[in-house]
């Protein structure tokens, strides 16, 4: 092995990676082989117990960005990163299960552009479809940048060659039918990721002397860091609240408000309740009761994911020499981008230092799987929206199915090429989570505002639908640019939280004002789209009352809520 690669992989590691891809491609081939088999295939996916849909629900989200981003965050700011899970995910998942899911299930809306079209008509649909397509391209760029980072780390190729090769690999993965078995691959991926991150965490903790050793080292590193490195004090890195290191606010009170409203409410409710890639997992289940329980069951593993992604990041920051240098203000050479070590490299560097060949291969397989699946999901979501919501509805109507399939294939290739360029933007960020939260602020926060207002307020008009979306997004971009220009000074993810909150407020205020002066849709067209116009019997499952308490929605959600509150106090 040449010495200029970041990770020294042996044939054993490559064998484990090859086995994983053999499985994934094998599933794709089996699914295509014969009609009856593929029916079995999808049905066994549907009649699976709720724990599997629950796992698939969070695996769709436990992708590359989360693993690398959360460990980078853990390395940089420590324990406050848990807010992404305990404030920024679990409450929204419970809300989705308890309040929103019966409504989705009853109204049979299957995508966000579809809801926009039926609720608000063409204007909001067009705006939403375009912004969704752009967002998918930018997020695909993040996944591709991370994938190329691994290729670079393994093989030592220049980053742009790695980007092109990684793009080509994803393209063939999509064409070879890897997506037709999405739910299988996601569940499989979850187990491979846990099987590699759990040993990584345990060995890492063992190396630094257990949890106490870790806290001592974090404290010592923070105390010894030079002032200009701007490292958060040890106490802030080891306590989740008030989380100034995460929000960037000096005042503890403002920090708590920023986290609860910006991250906990706008960003996370916006993400979880309008993200149909995940919601669809739940809607494939056989009853309202099962659909409601899916995100709630998913919330239980989700609570414990931070221990295997954030803790390794923290360990990496006190164990790996390059990360120690980086955190005390240095700029060490190397790293996955080839342009110096970044916090994004925390997990890869820890793997290099503590995993023996064998386990290393398992970890690489898990990461590659997560990146490819993530990017493939972005690309195919883009493909669907581009071909059907944009091209067919607005550009070329009434062509044959074959025609749109061809457009879809061209869109897939085009999107992959564009992602190679959007990956350059992602590579410019030292901590990928900052970039991702910024994007969510642009796209998800106004969407959530329009969605929730349109769902609960029947007076909201079609004009208000698109005006709110456009100006919400523009205001978030304005806040981001002001922050970039230094007018607003918030380190960490504070600027992203502020942009998201601004977008939300601007969207709501404008939507209300515009609604009051324009003409609403007649109530007869709002059935199934607005809460007050939807019959109650569509929203409840008559069989659920007969089930034992541990299979009912509300008791399960209460337990999850109680557990997450305990976790918030414990750390």
């Amino acid at each position, binding site marked *: 092995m040449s010495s200029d690669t970041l990770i020294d992989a042996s044939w054993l590691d490559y064998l484990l990676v090859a086995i994983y891809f053999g499985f994934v491609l094998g599933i794709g081939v089996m699914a295509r082989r014969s009609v009856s088999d593929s029916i079995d295939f999808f049905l066994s996916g549907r*009649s699976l117990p709720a724990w599997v849909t629950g796992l698939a629900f969070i695996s769709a989200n436990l992708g590359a960005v989360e693993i690398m981003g959360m460990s980078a965050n853990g390395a940089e700011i420590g324990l406050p990163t848990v807010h992404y899970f305990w404030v920024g995910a679990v409450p929204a998942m419970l809300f989705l299960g308890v309040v929103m899911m019966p409504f989705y299930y009853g109204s049979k809306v299957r995508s966000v552009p*579809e809801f926009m079209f039926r609720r608000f008509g063409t204007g909001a649909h067009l705006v939403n479809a375009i912004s969704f397509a752009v967002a998918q391209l930018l997020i695909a760029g993040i996944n591709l940048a991370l994938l190329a980072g691994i290729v670079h780390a393994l093989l030592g190729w220049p980053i742009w060659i790695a980007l092109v090769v990684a793009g080509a690999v994803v393209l063939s993965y999509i064409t070879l039918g890897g997506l037709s078995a999405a739910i299988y691959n996601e569940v499989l991926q979850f187990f491979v990721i846990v099987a590699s991150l759990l040993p990584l965490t345990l*060995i890492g903790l063992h190396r630094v002397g257990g949890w106490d050793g870790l806290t001592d080292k974090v404290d010592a590193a923070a105390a010894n860091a030079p002032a200009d490195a701007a490292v958060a004090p040890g106490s802030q890195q080891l306590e989740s609240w008030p989380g100034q290191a995460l929000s960037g606010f000096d005042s503890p009170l403002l920090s708590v408000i920023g986290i609860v409203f910006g991250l906990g409410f706008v960003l996370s409710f916006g993400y979880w309740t309008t993200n149909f890639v995940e919601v669809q997992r739940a809607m494939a289940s056989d009853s309202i009761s099962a659909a409601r329980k899916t995100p709630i069951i998913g919330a239980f593993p989700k609570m414990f994911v931070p221990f295997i992604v954030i803790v390794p990041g923290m360990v990496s920051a006190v164990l790996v020499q390059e990360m120690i240098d980086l955190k005390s203000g240095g700029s060490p050479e190397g790293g996955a981008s080839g342009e110096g070590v970044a916090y994004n490299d925390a997990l890869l560097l820890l793997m290099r230092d503590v995993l023996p*060949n064998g386990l290393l291969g398992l970890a690489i397989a898990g990461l590659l799987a997560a990146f490819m699946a993530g990017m493939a999901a972005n690309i195919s979501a883009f493909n669907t929206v581009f071909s059907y919501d944009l091209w067919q509805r607005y550009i070329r109507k009434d062509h044959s199915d074959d025609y749109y399939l061809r457009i879809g294939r061209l869109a897939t290739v085009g999107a992959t090429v564009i992602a190679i360029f959007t990956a350059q933007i992602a590579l410019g960020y030292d901590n990928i989570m900052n970039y991702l939260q910024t994007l969510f602020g642009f796209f998800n926060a106004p969407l959530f505002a329009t969605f929730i207002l349109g769902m609960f307020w029947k007076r909201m008009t079609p004009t208000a639908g698109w005006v709110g979306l456009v100006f919400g997004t523009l205001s978030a971009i304005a806040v981001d640019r002001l922050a970039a220009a230094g007018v607003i000074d918030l380190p960490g993810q504070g600027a992203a939280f502020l942009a998201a909150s601004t977008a939300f407020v601007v969207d709501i205020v404008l939507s209300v004002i515009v609604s009051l002066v324009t003409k609403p849709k007649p109530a007869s067209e709002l059935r199934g789209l607005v809460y007050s116009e939807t019959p109650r019997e569509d929203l409840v499952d008559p069989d659920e009352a007969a089930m034992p308490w541990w299979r009912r929605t509300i008791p399960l959600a209460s337990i999850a809520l109680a557990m997450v509150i305990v976790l918030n106090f414990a750390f």
Partner: protein
Amino acid sequence: MSDTTDTNATTATPHKAGLFDVRNIIGALMAVYGVILTLAGLLGEHEPEKTGGVNANLWTGLALLVVGAFFIGWARLRPIVVPSDFDRPDDDPTRPAPQRKRPPAH
């Protein structure tokens, strides 16, 4: 999700999901990894300087074998039965495509 599904297969008789049961697939992958890592732990280099003295490959391999056996055993004991008929999701009239109106293949 797939372009290979076809309407005439909805009349298939009830049977077990078998190989397509996701628990069998998880179990098989975990078991294969378990065997390889256990062997690597027993026969390969130990690299204690990386792991702090623990034979990580061996322990992970054994744990994966247990997980794999658990999933395969569970799938054996409680097989999933594929129902003979099921509701296909409706085509959405407000959404231009894809529509399921291909002629039957056979």
